[in-house]
């Protein structure tokens, strides 16, 4: 289905405003909805067939925000948005919201979370939708249509709406830590059993750090905190770029990022500029440093001029290019390091 122009942007704008409001109350969402007169999204003189199509597409766009990996607040916002759109639509009988089979466990879990957190307005809204029979229970999320697409539209996630990617957390969960602890204890016990002194393992058997599980847990927690702080800084930086403090935070963020980039660049430069002299047996295949920048000298010609020499030297142009790049890198975050290219010397020795 071809996208409705501007629809995704409008939804994201509304959800973004809701996220800024930093609340999950329906009253706040309703205010934002009324401010924008969002119900007019369905206006425009259309015949019934087109109206059905557009409504279907609108509901489809909105329901995407209802599932992970979007953050909790965005998902509540999506629920309110679906409620608003479903009731504001002009189709008769109403177009339904398609929910795929695989999403239902997530939705039920979400509902339980809402109940636990006592967000009764959200629960009520969901219940109202269920009672109104607003859902189609489908096997697959997208309804198929058959038109040759010029290009497949990639589904991209708006970064700010996403939950911070907690890959570390999903890898090192509580269960994993618990199991590690158990295995570690078991291991220690086994060591004791086979040692001479039954109360503690032999010195020769101490091959690992004993408290590594605790350390792992601490490191994970630290990472999580760092990530949360960073997200907060990012959000604040985006919201009020005029403030003096925010500027500092921005440069702090940027410099944090560019510091790391510079450190990386420095390491790479060191490793790639130091070209190893090859052993005598392979002296016909000297390594030469070439920048992969565009330029007519790249490729064959430096190889030719260095035929006779045994000690490799970086081709003059390329090294200065590389150094020049380094300076540029200090000012901006992006940098580009030349990769060494091994030139095949001509066969004569």
């Amino acid at each position: 289905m071809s996208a409705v122009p501007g629809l995704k942007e409008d939804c994201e704008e509304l959800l973004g405003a809701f996220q800024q409001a930093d609340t999950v109350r329906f009253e706040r969402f309703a205010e934002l909805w009324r401010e924008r007169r969002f119900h007019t999204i369905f206006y425009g003189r259309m015949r019934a067939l087109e109206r059905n199509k557009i409504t279907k597409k609108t509901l489809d766009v909105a329901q995407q925000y209802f599932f992970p990996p979007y953050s909790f607040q965005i998902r509540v916002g999506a629920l309110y948005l679906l409620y608003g759109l479903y009731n504001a639509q002009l189709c008769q009988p109403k177009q339904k919201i398609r929910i795929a089979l695989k999403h239902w466990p997530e939705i039920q879990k979400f509902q339980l979370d809402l109940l636990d957190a006592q967000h009764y307005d959200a629960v009520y809204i969901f219940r109202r939708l269920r009672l109104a029979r607003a859902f189609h229970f489908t096997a697959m999320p997208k309804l198929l249509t058959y038109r040759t697409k010029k290009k497949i539209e990639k589904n991209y996630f708006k970064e700010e709406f996403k939950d911070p990617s907690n890959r570390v957390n999903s890898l090192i969960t509580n269960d994993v830590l618990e199991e590690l602890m158990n295995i570690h204890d078991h291991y220690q016990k086994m060591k004791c059993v086979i040692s001479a002194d039954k109360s503690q393992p032999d010195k020769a058997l101490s091959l690992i750090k004993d408290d590594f599980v605790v350390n792992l847990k601490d490191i994970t927690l630290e990472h999580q905190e760092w990530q949360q702080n960073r997200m907060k800084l990012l959000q604040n930086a985006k919201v009020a770029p005029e403030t003096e403090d925010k500027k500092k935070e921005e440069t702090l963020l940027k410099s944090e990022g560019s510091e790391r980039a510079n450190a990386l660049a420095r390491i790479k430069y060191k490793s790639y500029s130091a070209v190893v002299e090859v052993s005598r047996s392979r002296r016909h295949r000297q390594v030469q440093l070439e920048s992969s920048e565009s330029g007519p000298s790249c490729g064959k010609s430096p190889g030719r001029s260095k035929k006779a020499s045994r000690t490799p030297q970086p081709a003059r142009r390329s090294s200065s290019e590389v150094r020049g790049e380094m300076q540029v890198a200090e000012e901006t975050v992006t940098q580009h390091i030349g990769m060494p290219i091994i030139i095949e010397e001509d066969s004569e020795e």
Partner: protein
Amino acid sequence: QESHATGKRPDNPTDLIEEGELLLTLNIFYPVIFQKHKDHKPYQTVLVLGSQKLTELRDSISCVSDLQIGGEFSSQPDQAPEHISKDLYKSAFFYFEGIFYNDKRYPECRDLSRTIIEWSESHDRGYENLQSVKMEDYSFNDLSLKIGFPYLYCHQGNCEHIIIITDIRLIHHDDCLDRNLYPLLVKKHWLCTRKCFVCKMYTARWVTNRDSLAPEDPCFFCDVCFRMLHYDAEGNKLGEFLAYPYVDPGIFN
């Protein structure tokens, strides 16, 4: 999809569709007769219930090749037989996921898929076990299907239709809940009907080849113009030609 049957309820309560019934949306593509259809194949969209047998779908598919009347009738135009191909050649099969579902309800039905199965078994062609079973024994709930994957419906020996399942969902309160109306046609591609060459008004019913009286080959005529041009008042054949009854693809519009 909007349809005339939305929200309908049956008169007889035993015909009411129960909760939990599955609703499948199928696109059945017409066989490519016209070259212009090659890129955007026309299709009809049918809603079918999970509990319905495959034979119910087969009976609901309307294809022009079913109505063909075989034979050359220039010498006896009044005796074009009553039988249409649908009555003569009753065999058909569906192909889903490696299994051929053959219509075996009538004694005239043959296993059209046997040729294919023998072909695939003759050499190691990389197709796993292809099976052949009876269409009337299976309902859609018994099948395992892929959404969006092309399957096949073949009838009349060589008339092949691609079938694609676009959606499977649970039946909903607002759907048509009268079981008798399923399989339900919700969308149909409209085909241009070919008009008589002479009067340009009526749909063509005859087609002639090697016709000395016609300006082009083949040439299409409605019944009246055909007789007026090719036969005299006594019904004698005038000129040389071959005439075949013609069924227009747009007959189902």
